[in-house]
């Protein structure tokens, strides 16, 4: 029981971190960024390259992955999303294509086989009869710190408030003096950064492989659909619902069922409450 709670909390923290960058783009830019999973995967490889192949300290690898992730977000906004602005379907198709292209690029550079990331911080800690690696513990703590930081940034700063304003009414934001384009750039940058940090932790939680982008993308989509747009608290709560559902179904029923309940939950929420559990009504 204790083990389920501990593993549930840890996994959910990671899921929240994975989803929050995706939620941000969906809420502010109204773009379903299907390449988000690929950012996560590429960031894992960037970290692998710098800290395991070049031997830089893990924290440097993590930061470099984050910075390059932010750059990928900015590039994508400027080269794909902005020119295709009016056409949502075109943006979504091209983000999916981008994901496949990134997957091929990673195979070309690093090969097809899965790689194990060394833990960012080695060691384990025993809590009751549960064994927790420092690696996962750090990921969860980092996730919570980042989420709290993001929450405060959005609630307390002018730029954060402007991001929320753009997500609710672009004309209203524009006539308030907010430069929509600039806010979009900042959002894509932050989203890329968060996705990359989540990617490094996710890769060290599972393993590094060119196809690993699908699972986090589905988790992120599930959390946005179930949580509803525009709510960091919603993202956090739903990450815990999904995280615990997975841990419980794996522990009590069968490891093969991992992810199945998540899919069922997506369908259930879409049918019963399309705006999500915490989402706002579109006005």
């Amino acid at each position, binding site marked *: 029981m204790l083990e389920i709670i501990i593993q549930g909390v840890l996994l959910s923290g990671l899921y929240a971190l994975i989803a929050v960058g995706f939620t941000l783009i969906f809420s502010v830019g109204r773009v379903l960024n299907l390449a988000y999973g690929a950012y996560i995967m590429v960031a894992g490889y960037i970290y692998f390259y710098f800290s395991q192949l070049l031997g830089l300290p893990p924290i440097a690898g993590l930061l470099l992955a984050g910075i390059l992730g932010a750059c990928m977000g900015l590039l994508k906004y400027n080269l794909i999303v902005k020119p295709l602005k009016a056409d949502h379907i075109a943006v979504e198709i091209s983000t999916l294509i981008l994901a496949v292209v990134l997957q091929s690029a990673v195979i070309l550079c690093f090969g097809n086989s899965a790689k194990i990331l060394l833990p960012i911080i080695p060691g384990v800690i025993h809590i009751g009869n549960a064994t927790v690696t420092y690696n996962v513990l750090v990921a969860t703590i980092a996730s919570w710190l980042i989420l709290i930081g993001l929450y405060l940034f959005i609630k307390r700063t002018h730029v954060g408030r402007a991001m929320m304003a753009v997500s*609710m*009414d672009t004309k*209203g*934001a*524009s006539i308030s*003096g*907010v*430069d929509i384009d600039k806010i979009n750039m900042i959002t894509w940058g932050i989203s890329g950064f968060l996705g990359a940090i989540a990617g490094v932790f996710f890769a060290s939680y599972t393993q590094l492989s060119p196809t690993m982008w699908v699972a986090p993308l589905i988790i992120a989509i599930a959390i946005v659909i179930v949580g509803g747009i*525009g709510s960091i608290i919603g993202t956090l709560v739903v990450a815990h619902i999904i995280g615990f559902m997975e841990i419980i179904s794996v522990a009590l029923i069968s490891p093969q069922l991992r992810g199945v309940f998540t899919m069922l939950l997506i369908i259930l929420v879409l049918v019963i409450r399309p705006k999500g559990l915490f989402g706002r009504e579109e006005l």
Partner: protein
Amino acid sequence: MMDFLEIDKLSAFYGKAKALHEVSLTVKQGEIIAIIGANGAGKSTFLDSIMGLTKTEGDIRLEGQSLIGRSTPQIVESGVGYAPERFNLFPYMSVYDNLLVGAFTARTDIEKNIKVVENLFPRLKERRNQETHTQSGGERQMVSLGRALMSSPRLLIVDEPTIGLAPKICIEIASVLKRLRDEFNTTIVITEQNANFAMTLAERLYVLESGSIKIQGSVEELKNDPQLTEAYFGH
């Protein structure tokens, strides 16, 4: 003599359709003018065009400086505040946060401007933490005007300030607009379908029909104009 706001042969387009035909008008500093017109006459298009939200031809000058080619946020920064007809508020943010977003280009004046706004609309002070999607039309209009004032505008443009509001609220809004002009020397352009209301507030009127100015003059001159009486007072 240069006027505060000079609009020179302004045309506006939606795609290829021309929604505004060479509209010219001038406004002096500290003046209140009203643009009257029926639904679809082009009133909102005209105000959107001042804010740089439409594709236009012609010139718009504020104190001699052309606003053409500036982005909407730059126009706000130049001193133009806009309260649009549909308010375009941020529904899931509190009244106070809505006002703070309005201060995006005037962050050093926040304290002063909040005081001004909450003094003009005491109700906004009482409802500071309420999210605007739960508010009445009159309250939203107050938030919308308040948000526009947070950028310290010298020119305030208001699209149909009284549409759908109870008479009591209309009177309150009118008195606030007058106070803004009298106490802060704010220049004000409003649009109205209600010519009676426009006449109690404005010094001069322009009548817009199908995107062109059809009649113009001071309230005194137009009070008994048969054309205007027939079309906009319904008697």
